[in-house]
């Protein structure tokens, strides 16, 4: 049962990673944390679920719609919570995002109801590889997560806006002086982060066959943990952090008990941070 648990953990971890990358993009460029990320993920999940249940669209169209909805939502949140308070320090935007997360949760209850909304199953078959039964859906989810990471990498490494994002992350004033519209970069980074969160939401909805208004809380926490775990500003770190948390959780269920999964996952995170305060792949803070 070890290999199936590893695959379970990898699948779940890959989705945590997508959420964690969002935190990295936002923290990396803007030096700010959002507490509404989990709710953006939830809204994306609902958009995807609606696409599949109401309009009966195929899952990849639902994925695209969930990502688009999350993109728009992220764009708006940045406009509402971050843009007007760019110079107000860390606290005000943080508090606003906490408020926004509550509003979004309640809004989802009003719009979609408090109950679980079912999401149709896809790829229910399993395949056998070397005697081990693997769910096709898990492979699909891993594929989607990996594909999105590759696309993100292409965007960040290979395009002008990606270069501007990196430059802004490294020195936003210098980037601004070079003529980069840093406000637009912030907007795009935030929307992109939200979009990845929305993708994770849609895929988790498909994976667990349910979306519900409070689903963002746990995902936001795990994603944030994975992001810290990986060193706050490192995308590979966030991916690694997400996967480690996912795998540790599932192994905990196998070898301890289901109830300890979150405890052990967060314990591992605390241990890593004690040993490496800069996170797994983070750099030590430069003393200036």
């Amino acid at each position, binding site marked *: 049962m070890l290999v199936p648990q590893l695959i379970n953990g990898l699948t*779940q971890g890959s989705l945590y990673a997508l959420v964690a990358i969002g935190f990295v993009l936002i923290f990396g460029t803007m030096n700010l944390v959002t507490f509404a990320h989990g709710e953006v993920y939830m809204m994306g999940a609902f958009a995807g679920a609606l696409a599949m249940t109401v309009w009966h669209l195929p899952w990849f169209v639902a994925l695209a719609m969930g990502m688009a909805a999350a993109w728009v939502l992220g764009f708006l949140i940045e406009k509402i919570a971050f843009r007007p308070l760019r110079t107000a320090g860390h606290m005000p935007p943080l508090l606003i995002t906490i408020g926004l997360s509550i509003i979004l949760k309640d809004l989802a209850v009003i719009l979609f109801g*408090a*109950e679980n909304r079912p999401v149709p*199953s896809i790829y*229910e078959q399993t395949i056998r590889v070397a005697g081990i039964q693997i769910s096709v859906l898990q492979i699909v989810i891993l594929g989607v997560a990996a594909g999105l990471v590759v696309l993100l990498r292409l965007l960040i490494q290979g395009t002008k806006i990606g270069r501007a994002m990196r430059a802004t992350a490294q020195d936003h004033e210098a980037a601004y002086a070079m003529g980069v519209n840093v406000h637009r970069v912030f907007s795009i980074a935030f929307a992109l982060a939200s979009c990845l969160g929305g993708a994770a939401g849609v895929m988790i909805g498909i994976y667990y066959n*349910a979306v519900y208004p409070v689903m963002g809380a746990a995902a936001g926490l795990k994603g944030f943990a994975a992001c810290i775990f990986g060193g706050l500003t490192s995308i590979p770190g966030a991916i690694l952090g997400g996967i480690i948390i996912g795998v540790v959780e*599932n192994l905990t*269920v*196998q070898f301890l008990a*289901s109830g300890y999964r979150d405890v052990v996952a967060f314990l591992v995170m605390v241990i890593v941070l004690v040993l490496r305060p800069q996170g797994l792949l983070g750099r030590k803070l430069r003393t200036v």
Partner: protein
Amino acid sequence: MKEGIMKRRTLMRLLTVLGLAFLAAPSAWSAEPIHIAVSAPLTGNFAEYGQNWQKAINMAVEWINAAGGINGRPIEILYGDSKSDPKDSAALAQKFTSDSRIAAEIGDFSSTASMAAQPIYDRAGMVQLSPTTSHPMWAPGSPWSFGIVGTQAGEGPFMARYAIEKLGKKKIAVLHINNDWGIASKDYFIHAAKEMGAQILGVESYFETDKDFTAVLTKLRGLKPELIYVPSFYNEMALMSKQREKLGWTDAVVMGPGSLYSPKLLELGGSSVNGLYTSAVFFPNDPRPEVQKFVKGFEGKYKATPNMFAAVAYDAINLMAETIRKVGADRKAIRDELAKTKNFPGVTGKINFTERRDVIKDYRHLVVKNGQFTLFDK
């Protein structure tokens, strides 16, 4: 100082009551309403169960009031949202018992929440009639506590007999929700199953908020059980079944108690819940007139078939109304009369309280076939 606060509170309460009376004035009723409090999870993780209650109770009260109320007095329900959280249910108990208008209370949803509030109702001397609390230690805990859903002390052995004697499955794994209800449910089942000669291969638990069961299912699968017994609610069971199906685990039979019996299970679970065994105390297709009246009324009003949670709440409010009709709105008189209940025709079966103030239910063997609950007959 303290006295000052008390006085101010009393004054505030007085003003509130006056204000409410003023607001309530333009009704056709000349008589004072009879107030019954309901402590239920209207929001939070169990919100949809609480909302099921609310629908059933509102409909029952509408009907009672339309038929002239209780001896000319209308019923008025005061809802309190406990989120089924023991802190909130206890706080609501304080609030309800100190409100002299309230004759009795219905609630709470989970055994944990009901038991946290129990000492407060006990001290104040107010009936706490829970539609769903089935922990065997609950109703005996106070002479003011009543349970009408039956207990796992009855249901556990019933399900064990179903699994072992009817289905012939002896290698069993258990996966239960980690709360008072789930633990008691599991304990009674395991105890009875072991006595019947079954082998319990493993016991796992999950939390109310869990949605991912792939890990725990993968673990249980490794034990190779013939049957998994899952004391849970229909939401988790639906998710669990779908995830089990996706993991390709099809060679074990799934069974769970009557809490699974809901149209929602079929809707959420789809084909993955085919072959699931459960039991029920409430059947929408039951031809008894009281059941059909309830089902038709509910379907007409809410465009949905009522589930077990709606049915027990409907029985609770009707039983309460009937009791008050006999003895009036006196808290003590209600308790004494309630304890004497004989053959009350509930939609979930006849209600006769045992000495412990709970009910022995008459369960039916069910199995899901082609997306429908059907009677198991073999």
